[in-house]
């Protein structure tokens, strides 16, 4: 599945980071690298962007951009 489909409160492990150019590089630089665990924390009042938790900090990205990130959900 892709990261934008991850439900709020769920966690997942990143499989691959797609996209290109500045956006992809930015993802990688901010620590969204394969094998990293991310948690979908909340959505903004208008439903988009979303707040993620990873590597001990909070990051916000747009749902449209999150489609580029392949993840595997961690089942509780």
């Amino acid at each position: 599945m892709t990261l934008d489909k991850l439900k709020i409160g769920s966690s997942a492990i990143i499989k691959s980071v797609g996209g290109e150019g500045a956006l992809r590089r930015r993802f990688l630089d901010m620590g969204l690298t394969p094998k990293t665990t991310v948690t979908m924390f909340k959505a903004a009042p208008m439903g988009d962007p979303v707040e993620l938790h990873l590597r001990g900090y909070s990051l916000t990205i747009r749902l449209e951009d999150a489609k580029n990130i392949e993840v595997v959900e961690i089942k509780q």
Partner: protein
Amino acid sequence: MIFALIGNQNCGKTTLFNQLTGSSQHVGNFPGVTVEKKEGTILRHKDASVVDLPGIYSLSPYTAEEVVTRDFLLDGGVDAVINIVDATNIERNLYLTLQLIELQLPMVIALNMMDEVRSAGTYIDIDKLSEALDVPVVPVSASKNEGVSELITVLSDIGKTGKRPRKTDFCEGPVHTAIHSVAHLVEENARKTGVPLRFAATKVVDGDKYMIQRLALNDSQLDIVGHIVDEMESALKTDREAALADMRYDYIEKLCSSFVRKHGDGETKEQKRSAKMDTVLTSKYFGIPIFLGIMFLIFWLTFGVIGTPLSDLLASGIDALSKLCEEAMTSWGVNAAVKSLVINGIFVGVGSVLSFLPIIITLFFFLSILEDSGYMARIAFIMDKLLRKIGLSGRSFVPMLIGFGCSVPAIMSARTLSSTRDRRMTILLVPFMSCSAKLPIYALFTAVFFPDNAPFVMICLYVGGIIMGILSALIFKNTVFRGKPVPFVMELPAYRFPSAKNVILHMWEKAKDFLVKAFTIIFVANIVIWFLQSFDTGFNLVQGQDSMLASIGRFVSVVFRPLGFGDWRAATALITGLSAKETVISTLAILTGSASASQPLLQTVFVSTASVVSFLTFTLLYMPCVASFSAMRREMGKTRYAVYAMCYYTTLAWIVAFIVYRIALLF
């Protein structure tokens, strides 16, 4: 000695910079780009200066800030690097550190926010970390001024010995092989072009076009690099960019698992508190109302409670001084032209510059609190969806909102936007938000011509401005600002209490910036308008309708004839409006021979309702005042851009007023 201060955004960099330099700082721009460059002298070390570089997360070649930082580090004559690392967020912060080490410059790591880490029960083995990276690590708490003097001691040691980090190898496996092979290949090129070898090799593996060009690699070298990278990519089953990022984070994870011992989940009190605060501040139902409430409060305090009375106080002070001078000059029998220059030229000019000051200071007081507390990032989070449609991100919302108060601080506040494209586009949109100086014009006209529908006309004007702003944004997005906007991938920092020192220094900086740089242009513009208003073409001192300005007004009025307000007095008023919009009213009062400065005899100038509507439309949209022009020129980096902008506004105003007039005539 020159130290470069580098770190991620929100890591307390400004706070540390302020602690290191006190108030001995000045702000400029890096040559050729509108990236802010702050410099200061280290306290009690007169020969050591610190350059505060933009907050960045990486040395990728994608943003102006990152490129400026790279160039400055490679060619700026830097003696040593101070890398500030947020200890509460150590994993992501060390990512930049690993790239900085490759530059092989003498370096010190300031491990900031240690107070928060300690109180969370987390233990960081600083000696081991320092040993592993071969870089001195100094624990500090910049906001409490702890560890800063130790940092200065280590800095001056490093400055003297010039010790460079010896260890640069943080990789293993295929990435290691690739970097080392490329390093052998480009060794000669790197030496000749003065680029640190390890940095050059990594960047070539990364595919950085600038570095490949700078190293002047020949075709056979490029061919070999291609093979090396192909081999690495196929061994790792990923591409070069991901491979490098992965390599760095892998190493950092290993470092942290050995030297950082977290207590519980490792979250600090501040992070826990932030999550709690955000359940209200960015919640689905309360997020937007709270944001609008905060903005309303700031607005009301700035333009109503604090700013305006202060401005009025300043104005009455200047008035009193001006009266005193006038009396003195009259009693000395000073020539009338000189007297007019001093009273109507100089005093009015200085007064108009100073009248902005209280508003700028008050507004930046609140804005720096919003920024330092971490709420500004939440505003971007909340409002992003709305602004994305016009090609901007949530951060642009605040400058535009301030535009309803005054364009000058609004344009200045756009500096916090991290990308040049977003900053310029936001600045261009600010004047579409009707500023408070236009309000008296609307109020007077609606009271005189539309007494029954005043609120409706007023709302139409404000909304009309916003609509034209949105349309312009869509035009800009598809023309001048084509290309991809900077990705919106933003950290939400923990909420922190803003420090008084930071806030005060920020206010002072903005006030100084405005006074020093805006003074000349606003002052000169006022003197020119005074001159044109006071003399006729034979250079005789005259009043009102015989002045040069009136002649120009008569000349220009031809342009306004198709818009339905061809009367020369309307044209003249619009020209004087360039010094400050509210003068449109007082000019009309003088020219219509009205007894009261605030009640011009408008009916004599405007013949029909359609021409009034057209005039108001033009006033809403035409070029902003000289103060805004000067702010725009400064923040956009080139005079040319500001001039283009003025032409755009005025042309747009004419076209829209023409259309509105033609439509209004139908009714």
